[in-house]
């Protein structure tokens, strides 16, 4: 199992590095993952990577889960676990300590200013990524209509968006979008 161990180490090192690229969401690291997994390591073909990305998008849960699938592809179940832990472990530890510090100094002048300063910028960034997601998804007027209706429903009506998603998936499956 020498080769397997090597693959696991490579996976662990690579995804630990990738976690640092994932500022503002796991998808920011996808181009780099593609370059390494497809072009450098030849773990997957271009088409396989595209399918992996699509599968990660349809699977409910955070988008990081693409990492699990790449790991699974390279080294089976152990690979899936190693890839996910490497991608999340270091940054989770960091988040843990920063979160603790923030809670401990809650109300301190620097904490209030830092928090207050981050919130509006984050909102602007989140709005910008919503715009990017919408332009990518709404390439037809029907898709745009689905987005708009979902936004209106989700904002004003307390219906679970899962129903909207189910309807949208059926419309897509029927080729109506």
């Amino acid at each position, binding site marked *: 199992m020498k080769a397997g161990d090597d693959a696991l180490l490579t996976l662990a090192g690579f995804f630990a590095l990738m976690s640092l690229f994932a500022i*503002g969401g796991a998808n920011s690291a996808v181009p780099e993952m593609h370059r390494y997994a497809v072009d450098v390591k030849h773990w997957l073909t271009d088409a396989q990577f595209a*399918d992996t990305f699509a599968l990660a998008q349809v699977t409910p849960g955070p988008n990081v889960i693409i990492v699990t699938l790449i790991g699974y592809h390279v080294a089976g179940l152990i690979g899936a676990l190693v890839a996910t832990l490497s991608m999340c472990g270091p940054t989770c530890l*960091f988040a843990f300590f920063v979160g603790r510090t923030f809670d401990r100094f809650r109300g301190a*002048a620097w904490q209030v200013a830092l928090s207050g*300063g981050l919130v509006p910028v984050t909102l602007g960034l989140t709005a910008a990524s919503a715009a990017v997601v919408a332009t990518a998804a709404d390439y037809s007027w029907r898709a745009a209509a689905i987005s708009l209706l*979902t936004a209106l429903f989700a904002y004003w009506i307390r219906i679970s968006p899962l129903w909207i998603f189910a309807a949208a998936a059926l419309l897509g499956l029927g080729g109506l979008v």
Partner: protein
Amino acid sequence: MSFPRLTRPPSPPVETPPAETPPHETSPAAASLAPPRPGLAELFITFATISLSGFGGVLAWSRRMMVEERRWLTPEQFNEAYALCAFLPGPNIVNFSVIFGSRFRGPLGAVIALTGLLGPPMVIIVMIGALYAHYGDLPALRRALIGVAAAAAGLMMATVAKMAGPLFRGRAVERPVVAVVTFGAIGIMHWPLPLVLIVVLPISIALAWVRR
């Protein structure tokens, strides 16, 4: 409301401004948070639910669960926690689960919340991956995905609108201005993110410092 203490002192935060004020010794750091304190099982179930509902991004579902359903966080508290997580390296909601879990139930809470968030989708995607390797019919899946992606974009817009609520209703006029400028620079002008942040972030923090 007791708080599990760390066995070793926490590492200093990334951006430590000069310590003008002595740190407040606030042991019940969560005192300002909404009362019913989630238990470990509740933490696991909540984050698993967020995760399993989270088609096309989990932000919308986290906010819905935390603010609208369980009412563990006020809209302002959610915005603050999310902003911190967005600026830490690593996936935002993964960071959020760790910070939220540890705030209420210490290190074990962080692990439980994280396991709830990542465990179920990991199991599902490995099963889907294995099925796909054997049968692999993605065209149908892709067609369904087109519909879901459009709905997910709409859900994200609604969530942004809800998060904007406290900002635009507050007295501080500079906060909505900063949000709109950031959106314009990135979303409309497509200026490079690091450049925009280097300019906007210090200004925003300075304004918040003055307003404090």
